[in-house]
């Protein structure tokens, strides 16, 4: 799967997992994922949902010495992390 497809898949997964009915149709992959500048308005509690959903869908655990703050910076960084894991 190429990077763009993975990013689109992740956006869909995040929107479904965090239950965001009024999510924008699309948003930049490098936009902040968590925090006040997030286009999806995700907070740190949503981050837990994203981490678990990614582990379930892709078998990739975000944690330990891999800083989840860095991995969850944007959909782009998340896709890069999944690809290299």
């Amino acid at each position: 799967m190429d990077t763009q497809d993975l990013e689109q898949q992740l956006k869909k997964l995040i929107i479904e997992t965090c239950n965001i009915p009024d999510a924008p149709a699309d948003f930049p992959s490098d936009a902040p994922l968590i925090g006040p500048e997030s286009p999806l308005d995700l907070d740190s509690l949503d981050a837990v949902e994203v981490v678990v959903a990614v582990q379930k869908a892709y078998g990739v655990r975000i944690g330990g010495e891999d800083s989840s703050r860095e991995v969850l910076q944007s959909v782009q960084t998340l896709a890069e992390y999944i690809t290299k894991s």
Partner: protein
Amino acid sequence: MTIEFIHRQSAHCESGVTANLLKHNGYSISEAMAFGIGGGLFFGYFPFIKINHLPLITFRGAPGSIFKKCASRLGVPVTSRQFRDPQRGMDALDASIAAGIPVGLQSGVYWLPYFPAALRFHFNAHNLVVYGREGDEYLISDPIIEKPVRCSSAVLERARYAKGALAPKGRMYSIGQVPGEIPLAAAIRAGIKEVATRMVKVPIPLIGVRGMRMLARHLQYWPDKFGDKQSIIHLGHLIRMQEEIGTGGGGFRFIYAAFLQEAAAVLELPRLEILAQEMTQIGDMWRRIALLGARRCKGRNSTDNTFPALAELMRECSLREEKLFRELLHVVKK
């Protein structure tokens, strides 16, 4: 003056600073190893100590203890000082840098300008390394930030003298010369023994697996005791303490699993590899509590995320951890 210092990012600030300072002095260990040798893992629930009106729940040992214990167990000399007078504290920092010694600083996160606004909160036990000064700016290796950063002297002084709980009071520390022979295996055993003893042997109901059970008992009745709004605030607080603040997730259980994995190779104890896997699974279970709790906080209620259901999961975590730490005590005693 700039000291050549290699910046490595880490999940947790104190173990990251410890590993980075050791590496600078010629002894390379991972963040997980520094965390494990320093006896970083813990569980404590202190309902009578309030931080921002919420009970103190901690998954790690006291601030400063990982650095001190890790260095001491490896036989590495350390210097640690506090200064009542901020000017003296900043002068001592300058003197160390001029002498070519990178300095670890305890500081308040809230004042550090390079932290994204969303991550700034009043936490005074954050650790970073200062490795140089250019004009009015200090060069900083903050292990939870991706790249080295800078901070003005006035702001750094404010962060070093932040007021409130765990106030740093200008605390600075550094590492002396690393000895030729490092007692790594003995240090690992000592770190494991300390954590395992604290988790299962200390007869205080607030800490270790007993502390988890007490929290489970209390959590179950939070809605009755505090009402809906406050019980959700308490639950959100528990999740943040566990999954944020540099824990590496699962309340430091994933970092500890990485440490056990490395320890298995050093001590040539394959059983530790199995226990590392079990620790990871326990971390997943803590994360499940966080996941279900987060859904409740967001109003997505179901039968599996009621307060009694979350309390039951926490009891299961305590039982699995009790079994694991008892076996760890047995394995490292041999």
